[in-house]
């Protein structure tokens, strides 16, 4: 660039991170990470989103410590049913005289479990199908993309319902059902990215070094697709949480007495007018966590995928 930068030179750790001449692989990587972090923190909403997600993780880890009561065993059914929020029961109690706050805290484990597992199953499938299809082209592409189309044609919740109906209700089956319906969009994204990358000179260069096709796909194509996929998965998390809650609400996901948020809303439905907190509290939790993931995804997009940012 022309002209001298007018800003003062950074010092200390920042200088080390921003060094134009890193001395090791680690310094180069950390420097890159730091630059990403800096642009991420420019977006206050993204930081709020990250905060919500971190809070969710902490809550899940320390659920036993945080929750004042047992999430499963209720209190005295005669005196402690459907109590409004108070000092003893912060968010009130439900029809089984269980503390709603404790149930919410423990429910975060289930939510996180669903989110992490779906991400772990769906992302690699989508990534692999997309990159292989895009890189090889020809009939491989045709076959893989038609399979993707078939999966894409199913409405997520309906397929999940059918799946759970066939395998029997339970959180694991719900997760599998959600994962199976959520990978096709990732495959599409990965394929589109791969089509752009495949004809670039740096791929031609590595081919001319004699690299095998798996090596090119895994080592050179995948790293470039991963960032836009991470963004997409994060943005999808809200939908996944909602689907899981929806299945819970219909009684097809987590089974009682598991403190799953969707199932909690379902129980609260019966007391909606008089004891609103029973349904509203878990509903609020679903809302906040979904929003958190969405905000985080938006922030990540600005950092990882500058093309897609507004």
């Amino acid at each position, binding site marked *: *660039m*022309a*002209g*001298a*930068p*007018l800003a003062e030179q950074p010092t200390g750790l920042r200088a080390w991170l921003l060094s134009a001449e890193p001395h090791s692989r680690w310094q180069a990587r950390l420097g890159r990470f730091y630059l990403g972090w800096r642009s991420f923190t420019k977006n206050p909403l993204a930081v709020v989103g990250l905060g919500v997600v971190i809070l969710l993780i902490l809550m899940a880890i320390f659920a036993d410590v945080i929750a004042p009561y047992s999430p499963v065993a209720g209190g005295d059914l005669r005196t402690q049913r459907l109590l409004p929020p108070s000092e003893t029961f912060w968010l009130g109690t439900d029809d089984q005289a269980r503390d709603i706050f404790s149930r919410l805290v423990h429910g975060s484990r289930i939510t996180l479990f669903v989110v992490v597992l779906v991400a772990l199953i769906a992302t690699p499938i989508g990534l692999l199908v997309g990159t292989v299809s895009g890189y090889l082209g020809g009939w491989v592409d045709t076959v893989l993309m038609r399979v993707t189309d078939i999966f894409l044609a199913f409405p997520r919740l309906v397929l999940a319902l059918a799946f759970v109906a066939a395998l029997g209700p339970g959180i694991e089956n719900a997760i599998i059902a959600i994962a199976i319906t959520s990978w096709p969009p990732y495959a599409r994204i990965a394929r589109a990215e791969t089509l752009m990358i495949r004809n670039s000179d740096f791929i031609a260069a590595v081919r001319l070094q004699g690299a095998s096709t798996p090596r090119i796909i895994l080592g050179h194509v995948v790293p470039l697709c991963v960032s836009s996929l991470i963004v997409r998965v994060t943005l999808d998390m809200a939908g996944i949480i909602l689907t899981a809650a929806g299945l819970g609400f219909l009684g097809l996901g987590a089974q009682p007495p598991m403190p799953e948020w969707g199932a909690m809303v379902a129980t609260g439905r019966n007391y909606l007018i008089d004891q609103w907190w029973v349904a509203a509290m878990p509903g609020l939790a679903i809302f906040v966590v979904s929003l958190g993931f969405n905000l985080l995804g938006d922030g990540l997009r600005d950092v990882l995928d500058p093309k897609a940012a507004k």
Partner: protein
Amino acid sequence: MTKPLLDVEDLRVRFHLRTGTVEAVRGVSFQLGRERLGIVGESGSGKSQTGRAILGLTPPPGEVTAKRLAFDGIDLLTASKRTLRHLRGGRISMVMQDPKYSLNPVMTIGEQIIEAYQAHAKAGRNEARDKALAMLEAVKMRDPGRVFSLYPHEVSGGMGQRAMIAMMLVTEPDLLIADEPTSALDVTVSMEVLRILDELVSERGMGLIFISHDLKLVSSFCDRVLVMYAGRVVEELEAKNLREAQHPYTQGLMRCLPTLANDVRPLPTLNRDPSWAL
């Protein structure tokens, strides 16, 4: 020279980036009459930003300041948006490097020229059409009627660039800014395009700012050359006196090109003196 067509004094373009402020153009001053002015420099010298700043096309977050930036007596910095819109594309036009990215891919070339014309002149459809065809003929299209109804992807690079020039000149501007108009073209084609540009300039008495990295080309095409380095004009000279260039940067740029006439080995390289950028 009478009253200058374009008067630029102390033009500065700053970009406020996250990593600090970068000044791409640092105090450029020149006056332009109805002549061919070349601006030469390497990438990052600020030559393109100078051209864009005149047209008010500096991309955000850029900031343009100048002691004076006047076109035919109109101050471009304080002019209203309406005046600017009227000037831009009307009395001042710009030809960019690659016609592929400057033409609208879903409109025929003829439609685009008509649109450009009607945006600045009150003219009926038929009159605009005649004008567009005449313009395509002026840029030496072999079959103007056919090219008129073609889409940009259906023509070659050279034809696309000529269509672009036709579109930019249909409003009969007083000033044309050409930013690397031939860099994406083959040599023989680019000579044709330059010849057309040259004729149009001398026939219509336009002012032309020709921005390029190619010192040899600019000096053979223009009357006057500004050599830019790191956002500043380091030397201004008559094109025919290029061989007597004083500044070591200009001299270095001249020498480091391999030529057919002399076999110099190794090629002299440019030792950048930090004081040039001061």
